[in-house]
């Protein structure tokens, strides 16, 4: 297996599918020669040419909206929105068009498109360039929402997303772009809707995704030293959600902590907590805890931003409160 970064893995996933399927193309702001704001598409313009890797004007509505039309007409667009924070500029195209076309047409349409977009705080980019908004997308039936936490998942989920016949929002975390790891070569597919136990444990289940998955793994190491053995479950895809895997883990551990970087109120952690309370109530030996960002915009100052981002310490504290 090759060693690559999360960013390279995303790129590799796109490259594999672009080679395999001539209908796959990339469109977004500065994605061509420039390689994207974070360099994720670097080199793809040279490899696949100007007809398949295309810069757009600063026009998020038509970036996503054109992808709907292109997908309905048979292509497989990968549309990049430079920061997830800008999705407010194209929520109609995503939520009313991409998501609903199939259903509104009585099943007689297919909209295979991927919206790739980076999320997350940690670089001092402040309130409009640091958000995590996954729960908005998960609230739209017809859309799938993916948030990889490792290089291998980043690649395997990218390939699965491109091959999927539905609109998929693929959210990559800026803080993970440089994370290195083993990544299978070639057509490596991680199926959508399958959670992954990233660490086995018997005492408490921690459900976390994206950057927070990595923070939870670190917290688990600490907890292990103190005798608490956490199971870390990475849903990987929020919709479809691998409910069974979560319930199974909670059935084993009896305790659940959910960690996400989104703000707390109406974050996706609430959905998971509600599912477990509804369908796994008898498994629970303790309240379900959420470790999340506070209900505030994201501050610029590093001091404040660090106070904002959920961290190992907060995870450990939440876990311990359950014992």
């Amino acid at each position, binding site marked *: 297996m090759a060693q690559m970064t999360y960013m390279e893995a995303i790129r590799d996933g796109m490259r594999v599918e672009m080679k395999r399927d001539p209908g796959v193309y990339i469109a977004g702001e500065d994605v061509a020669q420039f390689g994207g704001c974070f360099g994720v598409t670097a080199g793809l313009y040279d490899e696949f040419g100007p007809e398949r890797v295309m810069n757009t004007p600063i026009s998020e509505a038509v970036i996503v909206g054109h992808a709907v039309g292109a997908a309905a007409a048979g292509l497989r667009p990968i549309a990049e929105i430079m920061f997830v924070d800008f999705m407010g500029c194209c929520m109609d195209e995503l939520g*009313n068009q991409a998501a609903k076309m199939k259903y509104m*047409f009585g099943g007689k349409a297919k909209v295979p498109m991927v919206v790739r977009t980076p999320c997350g705080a940690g670089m001092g980019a402040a309130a409009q360039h640091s958000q995590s908004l996954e729960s908005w997308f998960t609230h739209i039936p017809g859309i799938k929402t993916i948030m990889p936490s490792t290089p291998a998942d980043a690649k395997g989920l990218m390939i699965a997303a491109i091959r999927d016949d*539905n609109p998929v929002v693929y959210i990559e975390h800026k803080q993970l772009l440089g994370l290195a790891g083993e990544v299978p070569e070639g057509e490596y597919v991680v199926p959508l809707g399958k959670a992954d136990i990233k660490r086995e444990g018997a005492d408490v289940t921690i459900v976390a995704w994206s950057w927070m998955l990595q923070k939870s793994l670190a917290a688990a190491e600490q907890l292990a030293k103190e005798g608490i053995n956490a199971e870390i479950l990475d849903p990987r895809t929020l919709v479809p959600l691998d409910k069974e895997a979560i319930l199974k883990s909670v059935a084993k551990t009896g305790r659940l902590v959910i960690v996400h970087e989104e703000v707390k109120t109406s974050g996706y952690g609430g959905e998971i907590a509600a599912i477990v309370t509804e369908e796994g109530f008898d498994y629970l030996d303790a309240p379900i805890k959420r470790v999340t960002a506070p209900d505030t915009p994201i501050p610029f100052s590093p001091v404040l931003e660090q106070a904002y981002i959920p961290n190992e310490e907060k995870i450990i504290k939440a876990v311990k409160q359950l014992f």
Partner: protein
Amino acid sequence: MAENKEKLLEMYTTMVRIRTFEQKAIDLFAAGKFPGFVHSYLGEEAIAAGVCSNLRKDDYICSTHRGHGHLIAKGGNLQLMMAELFGKATGYCKGKGGSMHIADVDLGILGANGIVGAGMPIATGAAFACKYRKSDSVAIAFFGDGASDRATFHESLNLASIWKLPVVFICENNGWAISNAQTSHQNITDISDRATAYGIPGVSVDGNDVVAIAEAADAAIERARKGDGPTLVECKTWRHRGHFEGDPAIYKDPKDQEEWLADNKDAIARMEKKLVGLKYAGQDYLDKIKAEVREEVEAAVQFAEQSPDPEPAEVLTDVYTA
């Protein structure tokens, strides 16, 4: 084109089909046969008929909330359309879409749309697909004067221009955006002037002259097929009815309304006169067409009325493609 008898008769028939369908839909809605919104295309028939007379099956259109006419002109099946208005299982969308979401992807009809202006990005994307595949198909975006104020108008025309996409933007300026006269929602007379902002051609035509529309659209479509990029075509017309059925449209000046509905303005009456004048058809022949179309529409109503409702469990299907 004024010389092409067959095409003229075809466009005439299309206009009659739209008008007859729409009049029926109005009556059915008033009779409580189906719920929701019905936005009538009465008075604007020439635009859909003229534009679509130049289209092939492998061309795309994106329609609007006022979409019945576009669908009929692109070849939509009246029975499946009517059944959809009734919300029946046999409708185009199995009853899931209704008037504002009728579509026939096989005919290149990427749907009516409940969101004003939403068809323009979608048509832009369909046109991108045509170009990407190196076919000479094109895409048409229909939209209203009101929609020309929306975000999507600007972003779509700019992208289509810079990518030189085979898309034609057909603005149906019917003088109104719900209760707002065009003069009250934009400070220009000719919406085609907005083409300047994107470095593309813009033309305005009489939206009740089906031949003029067909010719302007033909030129724009040929331009698109040749790879020369998008065009903005404004068709100036008048909405005969209220915004939706149930809107008494008291904001309209009755004089304007009367003028626009008079035979010398109405697209169908004008076309009849032309066809008779050119001796392409006698009035009896035209009446025969109308009678045939009425039967078609009645058959569609019958089909719809006799069709079953969807099963309630159907609410859960068609959300995702497996």
